[in-house]
């Protein structure tokens, strides 16, 4: 379990994350939603050590994140950021092989190769594994990066807006894969989302943030309610049930 305890981050004097305490349940998809500038990405960056927190602590399986060794941490938690600019030209397979770095330090064993094969297969990238990343579409690139994270084989997978710039088809594809990671492989997925309908349809729990604070935290059914959403977004959002999905109709409110 990931436990965030009274975590704060200031930029200058302005708090971007303020006294956040939240528990992330294992083997579930937890979505972070909220308006722009609510501190969702900052929170995720602090949990994954990309950013130092000013006060408070993050515990992963009861261990303080700051006291863990970089390498041990990388075997437990992986993070994928929105933009992944790179200075080198890599093939998909080379990128995915980097996922094994915490284990093999660049010298891949036979087992590493096998896990890389599996990850490529899982993301349906086996046929195109020798293509270069800069020749791929946005969706394929994103899948390649997720394959790297799968090869990293961590219990916790954190994703910062993985659906950015993706079309509907690829977004659905990625969300389905994340669902499978939780249901089939027992991973814990934490994801920052902007489209609340993806959060509604695919996640088990939702944490809503606003102005650096957690305003709602609970199972998806409890958060996807007109009154709760009003509190988060200051918008009147009617909710329609279509099939088994609860869809927020926010376009004209």
């Amino acid at each position, binding site marked *: 379990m990931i436990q965030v305890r009274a975590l704060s981050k200031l930029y200058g004097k302005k708090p971007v994350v303020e006294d956040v305490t939240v528990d992330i349940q294992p083997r579930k998809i937890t979505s972070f939603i909220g308006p722009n500038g609510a501190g969702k990405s900052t929170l995720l960056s602090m949990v994954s050590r990309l950013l130092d927190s000013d006060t408070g602590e993050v515990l992963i399986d009861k261990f303080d994140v700051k006291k863990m060794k970089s390498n041990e941490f990388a075997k437990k938690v992986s993070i994928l950021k929105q933009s992944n600019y*790179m200075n080198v030209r890599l093939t998909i397979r080379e990128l995915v092989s980097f996922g094994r770095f915490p284990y093999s330090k660049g010298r891949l064993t036979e087992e590493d190769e096998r896990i890389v094969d599996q990850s490529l297969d899982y993301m349906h990238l086996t046929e195109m594994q020798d293509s270069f990343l800069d020749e791929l579409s946005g969706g394929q690139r994103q899948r390649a990066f997720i394959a790297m994270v799968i090869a990293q084989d961590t219990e916790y997978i954190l994703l910062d807006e993985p659906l950015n710039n993706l079309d509907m088809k690829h977004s659905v594809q990625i969300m389905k894969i994340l669902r499978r990671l939780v249901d089939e492989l027992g991973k814990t997925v934490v994801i920052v989302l902007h489209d609340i309908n993806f959060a509604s349809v695919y996640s088990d729990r939702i944490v809503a943030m606003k102005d650096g604070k957690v305003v709602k935290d609970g199972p998806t059914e409890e958060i996807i309610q007109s009154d709760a959403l009003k509190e988060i977004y200051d918008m009147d959002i009617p909710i329609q049930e279509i099939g088994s999905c609860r869809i927020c109709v926010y376009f004209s409110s």
Partner: protein
Amino acid sequence: MRNSVKLLVLAFIAAGFCAIYLFHELNGSFGYALPKRTIKVLAMVLTGVTIAYATVVFQTITHNKILTPSIMGLDSLYLLLQTLIIFFLGSGHMIMVNKQVNFLISVVVMIVFALLLYKFLFKNGNQPIYFLLLVGIIVGTFFSSISTFFQVLIDPNEFQIVQDRMFASFNNINSDLVWLAIIIVSLVMIYAWRFLKYLDVLSLGRATAINLGVPYDSIVKKMLVIVAVFISISTALVGPITFFGLIVANLSYQFFKTYKHTTLITGAIFMSIIALVGGQWVVERIFTFSTTLSVIINFIGGVYFIYLLLKERKAA
């Protein structure tokens, strides 16, 4: 051709050039010319190693393939130091005449300057690396301006000696210094060996590198210190020649097309040995010293730099 084969070919060519330089027209002068030439070859190999290593590492850290470590202002500091010594103490002073003392003072001043710069910049948390580069450019320009100011005031005869220092030269290299530099560089290389594997991951960017368990900030700081040490040593030994690294690093990227730094760095090292030893041979035996190696290097390097800029512009 596989990369290991390419490396072997390069190593062979590099060794060949060293052999030609050492033994061509030696006329049996084993006692006099050979030891002198050996020292020169060692100095060129050492310069090649330090410049190639420092440039590739620096470009990986800054995620930029058209930067050289000279942007941190170490070469300008070296020239300023030499100018000030000659201006205030005169070219006959012990610090100018005694090469060992001059070398040690130059190296210490440059490394201390680099460490102070890093310390100042990394004091409040982790400033982005581009801030370091900007400060480096400004400080470097400042140093050059002061140097020019003093060079204008200086006695014309003394200025000749300053001018000598402005261009890298492999003639008249002190053999004790070469051995000292080789020892320091080898020790640093052994220390840095275990960080080499992290460099591959560093080129994936900060977030990905941290995600993969690389202690990013501490590795970057250590590598920057190593770059400063290497640049200081090669500059104090032969003079400012950092521009040269840009050529060999980029040739190495183009030639090997890999992300593996062990290959990239080794390749760049062999290429710089080929260029330096081969170039020096051409300068000495064909041009018979009518030009200097650094002029040729700056000319070819400048042309290649413009080509790189045009190519990058097309890709963007």
